[in-house]
């Protein structure tokens, strides 16, 4: 897809995010806005997905013969839901039910309500890389040449299970696995290097046997180029890790550069300011 079109989609997704969390006065806008470009690039350009004749994504829980994405840091569900809806997995109008009673759009992603596009629950951190390893292993067993993508947070790297999985993937030569860490440097209690310093994550993963790359997570062109380069480096018996440098809250100036918007919703005035910075473009509509 043309980069300009992708940018329009990304802006619309950011509008969805701030409107969704504002509507229920809860949810996690900061990380969602920071990871918007990655998810838009994956679902609208990079990933090979099952689609119908109109180009709408079709959901297959088993993800046979298609790429698959897992969101490990489940609290950024607003961006996930918006991108899934706008990819065609479910009606965009359903975004209005986010976090409400009887909704398929739970606070954190869940399969229990059978929302198309979600394959595993996430929210309790540190579990997604393991699940992605299992899915990548299954693709190897099935001789399915597609990729498994997984996104984790940088604060999440403090969970021990992540390092169990980080040991597992190179040992089993899961070179169809592309993991991304959202390196926004923030977590709930403050800057990551003050809360619990992860130090050099690239060096750590390299030492564990991963191919390590970096990208500018809020530069769509760079995101797409890096993901395609990662695909080119796959198949060499090493899993691939991409350190994605992002700004939490990207796209809404007053939400950027602070952990304060990790799990806080904007009020009416703040929403108006945010939406002014995210203009609707031709062909896109709010839900």
């Amino acid at each position, binding site marked *: 897809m043309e980069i300009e079109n992708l940018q329009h989609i990304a802006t619309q997704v950011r509008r969805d995010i701030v409107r969704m969390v504002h509507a229920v006065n809860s949810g996690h806008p900061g990380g969602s806005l920071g990871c918007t470009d990655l998810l838009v690039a994956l679902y609208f350009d990079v990933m090979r997905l099952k689609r119908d004749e109109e180009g709408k994504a079709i959901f297959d829980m088993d993800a046979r013969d298609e790429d698959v994405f897992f969101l490990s840091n489940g609290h950024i569900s607003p961006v996930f839901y918006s991108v899934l809806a706008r990819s065609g997995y479910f009606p965009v109008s359903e975004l209005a039910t986010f976090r409400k009673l009887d909704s398929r759009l739970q606070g954190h992603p869940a399969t229990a309500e059978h929302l198309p596009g979600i394959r595993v629950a996430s929210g309790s951190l540190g*579990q997604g890389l393991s699940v992605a390893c299992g899915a990548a*292993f299954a693709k190897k067993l099935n001789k399915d040449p597609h990729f498994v993508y997984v996104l984790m947070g940088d604060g999440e790297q403090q969970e021990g299970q992540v390092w169990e999985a980080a040991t597992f993937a190179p040992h089993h030569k899961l070179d169809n696995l592309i993991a991304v860490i959202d390196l926004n440097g923030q977590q709930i209690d403050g800057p990551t290097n003050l809360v619990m310093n992860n130090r050099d994550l690239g060096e750590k993963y390299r030492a564990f046997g991963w191919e390590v790359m970096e990208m500018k997570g809020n530069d769509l062109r760079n995101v797409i180029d890096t993901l395609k380069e990662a695909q080119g480096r796959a198949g060499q018996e090493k899993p691939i890790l991409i350190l994605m440098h992002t700004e939490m809250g990207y796209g809404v100036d007053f939400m950027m550069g602070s952990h304060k918007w990790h799990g806080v919703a904007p009020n009416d005035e703040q929403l108006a300011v945010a939406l002014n910075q995210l203009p609707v473009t031709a062909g896109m509509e709010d839900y």
Partner: protein
Amino acid sequence: MKKYTYTEKKDTRSGFGAGILELGRTNPNVVALTADLAGSLKLEGFIKEFPDRYVQCGISEANMMGVSAGLTIGGKIPFATTFANFATGRVYDQIRQSICYSNKNVKICASHAGLTLGEDGATHQILEDLGMMKMLPNMTVINPCDFNQTKAATIAIAEFVGPVYLRFGRPVVPIFTPADQKFEIGKALVLNEGPDVSIFATGHLVWESIKAGEILAGQGIEAEIINIHTIKPLDEEAILNSVRKTRCAVSAEEHQLNGGLGDSVAQTLARNYPAPLEMIGVHDSFGESGTPDQLMKKYGLTAEAIVEAAKRAIARKM
């Protein structure tokens, strides 16, 4: 009292090993995982014949649970194996979120459960696993009693779609159930019919209950002995049908009283047909080192203890 005999003793974990080997031959989607305990879980046969479908996870049980959940996405049927302690308490949140809440078709197969693990002591003798697993929505919990039943259960859970916790053990115990049995999840098995007292037993305590039934018969008491191999979903109908007849019951398990089979039986009776219930199990304590026989005796998980419990239950009948 119906006569039960045996010609051979084997460990229930070997029943699992035999079952998964057969599954390997009949179901190409079955994958076996372990966390550095392939030998203890009797996976050698499977590994030899199906090395590509064997996933060594190293000593990282949390990751093994997540990998298992991921393997189901792609149509695999993962059997995640380790000791019962490391298969449950150590990885509760992984099972809760990635497997049960996500309703993944993962089979958690746990050996060395309970006191009969023996000399390794309380760090490894989990007595809370049935309770933890039965509390999880979507989870099916199975605790078979001998080699043949464990093998049959292993084969049966591959056909069933959904998360399963299959618990078995280390010591050799009599093989008294048929080699050709078809295992029906959730279906209690009446081993002996009797009017005086119902004995609901699971796992290793089923054989002890048969021995107890023989002792009781010698004293003129005919016990109804029921093998509850599936803790969840519980065969409430079988329990109630029996207690409506006997009007008192004993539960017997190698587990804490809190959260175990007895706890489930008590709920069933209290809600439907209140009747005296005596519970054989571990009373809110950890285990310790010793031989399996010594431990079962010290903690009161024997045929003799079941006999005494049955008499107390009968004495409490209204």
